[in-house]
């Protein structure tokens, strides 16, 4: 059934991603691809992987933004890396628009999944997702998306400490956290409260479960700050260096 659970689940499993700590290394994206291409959604097809226009299914993508503050000067601002995967929203239209019942949200823990045996590949759910989190597998003819590593987090064949999403355990910066956001006392909920965690595009009304922690404010440029410039006239003053410069400028 693509109706959402009648009661929002009390357990809300999700990710908390720290934009202050994320260094944009893409390790989580790679480990996600690696794990899931062997998981329930396998394979994460790559088309033309070594050709000139490679195309493939990934559940996690890292965008890098520049946040500038022109009023504080041309160099004020910061670079922010933003990993983006399914947010396992609480009231997402991606589930309700599905005509076949392939898309569903689990009542027990809030995870949003796709039953690939039912999916007809109409792509409507990807249109209804505001976060670009659903990627169509052209080869398999079905829609695919982040499973919150449902095959890891409950997997009794794994050691207790490994029952974490692949992207979380891989992150070398410790920027990704996994837990129950429905439980106020969980580590992730405390982290969100402490650091003013926020939702992506809240106006859409899908109520994402995943939260993002804002980058901490950077110290602004001081008045004595001057951007580094390479000025030939200024730096090359000896005759010898000028000769070297000429020699190598040829």
């Amino acid at each position, binding site marked *: *059934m*693509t*109706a959402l659970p009648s009661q929002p689940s009390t357990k809300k499993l999700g990710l908390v991603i720290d934009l202050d700590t994320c260094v944009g290394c*893409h390790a989580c*994206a790679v480990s996600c691809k690696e794990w899931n291409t062997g998981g329930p959604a396998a394979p994460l097809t790559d088309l033309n992987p070594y050709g000139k*226009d*490679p*195309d*493939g*299914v*990934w559940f996690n*993508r890292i*965008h*890098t*933004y*520049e*946040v500038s*503050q*022109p009023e504080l000067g041309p160099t*004020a601002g*910061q*670079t*922010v890396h*933003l990993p*983006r995967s399914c947010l396992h929203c609480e009231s997402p*239209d991606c589930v*309700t*628009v*599905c*005509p*076949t*019942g392939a898309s569903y949200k689990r009542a027990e823990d809030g995870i949003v999944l796709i039953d690939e045996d*039912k*999916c*007809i*590949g*109409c792509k*409507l759910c*990807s*249109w*209804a997702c*505001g*976060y*670009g989190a*659903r*990627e*169509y597998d*052209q080869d398999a*003819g*079905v829609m695919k998306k982040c499973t919150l590593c449902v095959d890891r987090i409950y997997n009794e064949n794994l050691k207790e400490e490994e029952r974490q999403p692949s992207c979380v355990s891989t992150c070398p910066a410790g920027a990704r956290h996994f837990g129950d956001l429905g439980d106020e006392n969980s580590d992730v909920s405390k982290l969100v409260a402490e650091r003013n965690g926020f939702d*992506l*595009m*809240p*106006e*859409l*009304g899908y109520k994402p479960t995943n939260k*993002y922690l*804002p*980058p901490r*404010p950077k110290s602004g440029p001081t008045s004595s700050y001057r951007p580094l410039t390479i000025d030939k006239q200024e730096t090359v003053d000896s005759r010898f260096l000028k000769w070297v410069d000429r020699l190598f400028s040829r």
Partner: protein
Amino acid sequence: MHPALSVILFTTASGTGYGLLMLLMILNLNGLLPTDRGLGMAGFAVGLTLVTGGLLASTFHLGHPERAWRAMSQWRTSWLSREGVAAIATYPLVLIFAAGWVIVGSTSGGWSLAGWLAIVLAAITVSATGMIYASLKTIPQWNNPLTVVNYLVLALAGGAVWLTSVGQLIGIDTNVLVLLTLLLLPISWALKYSYWTLVDKVPAQYDIGSATGLGGLGDVTLLEPPHTEPNFVQKEMGFTIARRHAKKLRRTAVIFAFVLPTALMVGVLMTSGGLATFLSVLALLSVSGGLLTERWLFFAEAVHVSMLFYGTQKA
């Protein structure tokens, strides 16, 4: 949004087919079209062919067309599912009414009941098509009531022109049909115009700052996308057409979908015989081309909010 040919063909052909069938039945049930066997045969054949051709085209873009029957199951929440159910339910009713008309030669009594039900279901089907798009919050341009109204009225206008041609080719008196066309074309033109005006001036509700949540820190721009080649989301959702071209194409759509067919229909009214038939067929070709252009633009002009993550500033 990427204007997929299969979806454009589906919405225009099925829409026109349902429009034609609705008008054929409404006019007959109100005594404005004769229960003429030839007209019945040709009208239902053309209408059902358009509808079926469109529905088949719509399955071409599915990854698993053989599972299409599953799409009937989620009518409680999904407009796509509702559309499928209504489309399938319309068939037997249209066929019963057509049987009464063509085989028995009667459209009254029980036959008329089937007819009225078929009309309602056809209208529901076309509205459900519109609702698939209108219900998407992620595409602000579509997310308004004019989208559904447009789908309905354009279906009727296209259907009216096609039915007039059919009537001309069968050789019945088409004055009622021509007058109806002359009423529907300007109405649909006006509604399409208001849709475009709305789309142009609807203020952006989403921006890159709120999408990324970084807007409070300063002006957000995309420094590096996650990958070098466009992915599925960018190819499917990222298609936009330059304003300049959109303007030109809107003009083309208006000329072929509304202006030319209206003029040609006036011509049909003033001429008779072969010339009138010829003009009505020209109107049919013109309106079909115009509607295809209009539908292509409907998709091509729509901006999806997920593009904000890829650097689009507002949606």
